[in-house]
C-alpha cells in the first residue's frame, strides 16, 4: 500500500496487460457523464443548505436561503443535458419516460428528476416567491407583467391567510424535499454502485459517498456564488452567515472524508480479485486525481483549515478570502471525485489485467468545449433567474416596501 504513496509509477511495469478487444477502441462514458453526477450533486447539496434554514431553523444562513433554492433550480434544469447529449440517439430519450424498465437504475432517473423538479423545487420556488411575483407584476412592463402573472398561475391573493398557506406549503415541501434530494443523489450513486461487473463502482458505500460529497459540493457552490454575488453587488458580506456555512461545510467534509477513507480501507483490507488492478490504477493514472486533488487538496486541507479557522482569530476580510479559496478547492475536489469514479471505473479492463486510456477531445460531441458550455449554462440560467426572482434580502426588502407602497397607492 505504501508503494502507492511513495512510488506512484513503480507498479506500472509489472502490468501483465490484456484488455478485451472491444475495450481497446474507446471509453463509453466521457467527460459529460462526469458532469452529470457533479451537477446533480450540486442540486442536492444546495437544496440541503436551503432546507437548513427552513426546516432546521438555522437562521444564521438565512441570507443564502433563496440563492440556494435558485442555484438548485438552475443546476437541476441543466442536469439532464449531459445525459441526453451523450446518448447515441438523443431523439429517443423520451423512451426512458414512456417505457421505463423497472429493474434499471437509470430508468428511474426520469421520474426522480421530474418529481424533484416539478413537485419539489418549482413548487417551493412558487410558494416562496409568489408574493414577490405578485408585487413585481404590478410594477413591471407589459411582457414581464404577463410572465409574472403566468408564474403565479394567476393567484394574486395577498391576504394573510393566503400568505400563511404559502409559508406552510413551502415548509411542507422542504420537508418532502430533503428525502427527495437525498434520493436524487443517492440514486445517482446507485447507478454506479449497483454494477456488479465493475469492481471500482460496485460498492454499497457508493450512494452514501455520492450523497455526502454532493452535500459538500452544494454547500460550497452556494457559498462561492453567494460571496461572489455579494462582492459584485458591492454589498457587505454577512460574516455570521459565512461562519455558519463554513461550519456546516466542515461537518459535511468530516462525514464525506470518513466514508471515502472507509471505502478505500475496506477495498484494501478485503483484497478482492480487483485489488491488483485498482492499485495499479490508483498508483498510476489516478494517483494525482485521487490522492492529491480529491482527498488532499479537496478534502483534508479544507477540513483542517476550516477547523483551525473555528478557533483562530482573524479579520473578517481575511476569513472571507480563506472561505472563498477553500470552497473553490472543495469544488475542484468533488469534481475530481466524479472524474475518478466515472472515468476511473473505465480505465481498467473487465479482464482486470490491463488498463485502457481516455482521450479528452477538445471539439466534438463529448469534447472539452461542449463540457465547458454545459458547465457554464447553469450559471447563465442562475443569472437570469436572479434577475426575474431576486434572491437578495436587501433588494427583497426594498421591493417589498415598494410593492406595498404600490398596493397602498393603488
Amino acid at each position, binding site marked *: 500500500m505504501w508503494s502507492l504513496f511513495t512510488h506512484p509509477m513503480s507498479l506500472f511495469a509489472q502490468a*501483465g496487460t490484456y484488455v*478485451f478487444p472491444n475495450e481497446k477502441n474507446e471509453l*463509453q462514458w466521457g467527460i459529460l457523464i462526469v458532469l452529470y453526477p457533479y451537477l446533480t450533486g450540486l442540486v442536492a447539496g444546495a437544496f440541503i443548505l436551503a432546507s437548513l434554514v427552513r426546516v432546521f431553523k438555522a437562521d444564521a444562513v438565512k441570507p443564502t436561503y433563496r440563492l440556494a433554492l435558485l442555484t438548485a433550480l438552475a443546476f437541476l434544469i441543466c442536469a439532464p443535458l449531459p445525459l441526453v447529449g451523450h446518448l447515441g440517439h438523443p431523439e429517443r430519450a423520451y423512451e426512458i419516460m414512456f417505457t421505463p424498465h423497472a*429493474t434499471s437504475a437509470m430508468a428511474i432517473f426520469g421520474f426522480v428528476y421530474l418529481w424533484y423538479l416539478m413537485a419539489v423545487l418549482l413548487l417551493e420556488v412558487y410558494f416562496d416567491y409568489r408574493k414577490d411575483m405578485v408585487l413585481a407584476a404590478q410594477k413591471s412592463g407589459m411582457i414581464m407583467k404577463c410572465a409574472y402573472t403566468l408564474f403565479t398561475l394567476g393567484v394574486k391573493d395577498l391576504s394573510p391567510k393566503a400568505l400563511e398557506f404559502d409559508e406552510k406549503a413551502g415548509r411542507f415541501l422542504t420537508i418532502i424535499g430533503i428525502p427527495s434530494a437525498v434520493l436524487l443523489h443517492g440514486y445517482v450513486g446507485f447507478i454506479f454502485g449497483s454494477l*456488479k461487473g465493475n469492481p471500482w463502482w460496485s460498492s454499497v458505500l457508493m450512494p452514501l459517498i455520492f450523497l455526502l460529497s454532493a452535500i459538500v459540493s452544494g454547500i460550497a457552490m452556494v457559498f462561492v456564488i453567494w460571496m461572489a454575488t455579494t462582492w459584485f453587488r458591492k454589498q457587505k458580506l454577512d460574516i455570521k452567515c459565512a461562519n455558519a456555512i463554513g461550519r456546516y461545510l466542515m461537518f459535511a467534509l468530516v462525514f464525506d472524508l470518513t466514508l471515502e477513507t472507509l471505502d478505500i480501507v475496506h477495498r484494501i483490507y478485503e483484497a478482492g480479485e480487483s485489488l491488483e488492478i485498482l492499485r495499479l490504477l490508483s498508483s498510476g493514472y489516478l494517483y494525482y486525481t485521487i490522492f492529491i486533488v480529491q482527498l488532499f487538496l479537496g478534502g483534508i486541507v479544507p477540513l483542517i483549515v476550516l477547523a483551525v479557522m473555528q478557533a483562530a482569530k482573524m479579520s473578517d476580510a481575511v476569513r472571507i478570502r480563506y472561505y472563498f479559496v477553500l470552497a473553490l478547492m472543495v469544488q475542484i475536489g468533488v469534481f475530481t471525485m466524479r472524474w475518478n469514479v466515472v472515468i476511473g471505473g473505465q480505465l481498467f479492463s473487465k479482464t482486470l489485467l490491463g488498463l485502457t486510456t481516455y482521450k479528452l477531445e477538445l471539439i466534438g460531441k463529448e469534447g472539452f468545449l461542449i463540457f465547458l458550455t454545459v458547465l457554464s449554462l447553469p450559471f447563465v440560467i442562475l443569472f437570469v433567474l436572479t434577475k426575474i426572482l431576486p434572491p437578495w434580502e436587501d433588494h427583497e426588502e426594498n421591493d417589498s416596501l415598494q410593492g406595498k407602497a404600490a398596493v397602498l397607492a393603488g
Partner: protein
Amino acid sequence: MTPEEKPGENTMTRTDFLASAAKSAVLIGLGAGGYASFNSLTSKLAKRKLTPVRGYPNSTWYSMAIDITTCIGCGKCVEACCTENDVPPEHFRTWVERYVVKNNGEVLIDSPEGGKNGFPDDIPESDIAKSFFMPKMCNHCDESPCIQVCPVGATFLSPEGVVLVDYEYCIGCCYCIQSCPYGSRFWNPKRHTADKCTLCYHRITKGKLPACVEVCPVKARIFGNLADPNSEISKFCRDNAVMTLKPHLKTGAKVFYKGLTKEAV
C-alpha cells in the same frame, strides 16, 4: 407504590392470589405457546425449499458450448462473424484469446485483432508449459446484467433464450456495455447503439447454424437447444466437465466451456 397501600403489602387476599395465579398462568401459557410456535415456525422455515437452479423456461433454449481443448486459434469464426453480421472494424461480437502459460508460471494473454487473422508463432515452444485458445462471445446470460440495467427495454432475452438488442429502440446510453462483465458488448459507431452477438438469430430461426459454428473447422463450437436432452449441446455438456465464465457474478451465463482453466479471464 404509594404509602397508603403499604399496610396491605404482606397480606394477600384470596382474590389477589387467584388474580396473580391467573396472570402467571396466562404468562406461562403465553410463554409455552410462544416457545412452541417459535419451534414449529423455525422447523417450518427450515423445511422451506430453495431452487437455486431453475429449469429452462421454454422448450427452445439455445446456447453454445465451446471446446477449448479442440480450438486451434485459426480465427475463422471471428472472420465469419464479422462478415456475416457486418460488424464494424475494430469491434467484435466474438473473438479468440490465446493463453500461454510459460515455464516460469507467467501467463501471457493476447488477442491481436480479436484473433481474426490467427496468431503469430512468436513464443518459442521451449518456453511454453501450457497453451490454449479460447473463443469468447456473448454468454447469453439468463440473469443478464445488461438486460437488468437497460433503461428502456431495448435489450431483452428472446423466447429462445438469446439476448438481443433492439437497434430501433436503443437510445445508446451505453449502460449495458458498462454492466457486461465479459466485454461482449460494444458501441456500434454506425448504428449509434449498443451491439453484440445475436447467436446469429437471423440464421438460427431459419434452421441454419450460427456463422461461427458453421465455419469452425475443428468443431470447437457446438450450438444447440439446451432444453432438448438429445441435442448435441446437451450431450456435450453431459459428457464433459463444462464451466461458465465468472460464475461468482451469477449472471446465469450459458456459454459452456470444456477445458476452462484458472488462467481464463
